[in-house]
């Protein structure tokens, strides 16, 4: 294992200290229990937006804390859900009296911990709603699995919902919007290489020099199939095809196209992928109204990408364009 770390046990805590020092204008970081919270939290009368999950997906979620997006993020250990006591403290830290929305990616550990946290928060009199994202079309057989995983759409939902909360929408409206974004978005990812959890010290899975995994999750969980390496054009077809067919997206639809890097893939390749995606969508009569290209929901140093499409309407476009000021995304502010 070659990593820029000190002790594997201290990776999350030390990285959070660095994040806090780098972005003291935007956030403050509570060490124990760990959470990254907006510098001006709680914002009175505003719905608090909380998300969280295992670390190793940076900039998600801590990098999305700030005005116009998340109020607080709970980082767990690497690839491990945060804990209910941690989420409870984070919920209390951002409750401005209008309730708190928990945005939860559909992973068994996250669901169990967030359910316990919501129970604890309600016992303390805080109004909590939870919305689960589950946009990963790679999981075909939802009946006999833990269901579709929450992946790329989570980033888009956090931005759009954060903007709505900033406008003063109430908890029910914000939760409904989050469900709508999840319902209108689909994602599929792939990996060229594995990744190494610092505490484990060796790669999570083995992938041959001439192989790739199609339908990968964000922790190296396998997806649909392991196949021989192919061109970017072919890979885009294998990702975007199932995404388009699943919703389905149709000719005339307006979309946000999100090409996401898994952590170890350079920007030059992501734009090359975006070029292929643009041509493919043009060919299907689908209009890209907005785009996001970069590494926003990652799997440590895994090489690969995911493609997310979100069907847009005027309201979603307006909320996407609204000002955002976070470490990971910022415009208009």
């Amino acid at each position, binding site marked *: 294992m070659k990593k820029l770390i000190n002790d594997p046990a201290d990776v999350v805590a030390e990285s959070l200290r660095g994040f806090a020092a780098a972005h003291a204008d935007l956030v403050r970081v509570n060490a124990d229990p760990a959470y990254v919270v907006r510098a001006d939290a709680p914002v009175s009368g505003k719905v608090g937006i909380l998300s969280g999950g295992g670390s190793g997906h940076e900039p998600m979620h801590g990098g999305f804390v700030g005005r116009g997006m998340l109020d607080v993020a709970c980082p767990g250990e690497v690839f491990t859900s945060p804990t209910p006591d941690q989420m409870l403290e984070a919920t209390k830290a951002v409750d401005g009296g209008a309730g708190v929305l928990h945005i939860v990616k559909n992973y068994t550990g996250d669901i169990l911990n967030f359910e316990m946290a919501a129970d604890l928060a309600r016992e303390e009199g805080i109004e909590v709603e939870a919305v689960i994202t589950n946009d990963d079309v790679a999981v075909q057989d939802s009946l006999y699995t833990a269901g579709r995983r929450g992946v790329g759409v989570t980033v888009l939902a956090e931005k759009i919902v954060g903007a709505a909360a900033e406008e003063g929408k109430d908890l029910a409206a914000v939760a409904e919007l989050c469900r709508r974004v999840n319902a209108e978005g689909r994602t599929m990812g792939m990996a060229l290489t594995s990744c190494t959890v610092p505490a484990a010290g060796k790669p999570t899975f083995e992938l041959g020099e001439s192989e790739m995994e199609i339908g990968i999750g964000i922790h*190296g969980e396998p997806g649909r199939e392991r196949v021989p390496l192919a061109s970017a054009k072919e890979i885009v077809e294998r990702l975007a095809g199932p995404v388009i067919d699943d919703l389905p997206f149709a000719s005339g639809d307006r979309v946000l196209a999100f090409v996401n890097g898994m952590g170890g893939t350079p920007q030059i390749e992501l734009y090359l992928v975006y070029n292929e995606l643009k041509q493919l969508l043009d060919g299907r009569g689908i209009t890209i109204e907005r785009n996001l290209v970069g590494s926003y929901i990652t799997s440590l140093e895994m090489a690969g990408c995911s493609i997310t499409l979100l069907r847009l309407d005027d309201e979603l476009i307006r909320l996407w364009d609204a000002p955002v000021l976070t470490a990971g995304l910022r415009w208009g502010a």
Partner: protein
Amino acid sequence: MSDGAITVEEVVAWLRDFAAVMAQEKDALTALDAAIGDGDHGINMDRGMRAVMERVDAATPADVPALMKTVGMALISKVGGAAGPLYGTLFLQFGSAAGPDGLTPDGWAACLAAGVAGVRARGKAELEDKTMVDALQPAADAVGAALGEGASFADALARGADAAEEGARATIPLVARKGRASYLGERSAGHQDPGATSSAHLVRCAARTWAA
């Protein structure tokens, strides 16, 4: 009611043995998890049980319900993943079922059964979903049945541990239907479930603690 009352010290000894086994089996559990999950089960359980023993040794609660609440909350706050809430629920429900009066072997068996019921409710898992339940449910059933037949507490726990280990081994051919392993589909078959494995260790530790 074959044997005498179970003391808090004995329950602490059981937990200490489990913590030692989690430290010792950390890499083996993590390897099982890497095969079908995300490769951190041993690391997380070891971290959680260390936290449990730190809290218990700092101030040992006076009775079993209070002890198990400390254990459950420590696991919930330190393990993370799915195992944190599930093991936390197991111990919290065990403690709630114990009541403030002394624990008998029959009472212990009822506590384990309550804990397992809690795990099933929290995880919405059934037998043969390839989870902790596949070790814990047979263990609870075996301990209860053995005591009902008049077996000693030591013998009942030994039969429970055997049933748990058999249940864990029986997860090998199963296709996972819960948790992260379920995304492997058919590829999850051929690997023993890490959660069932750590659960079998827990019951084996109990058998060792109360061996005749």
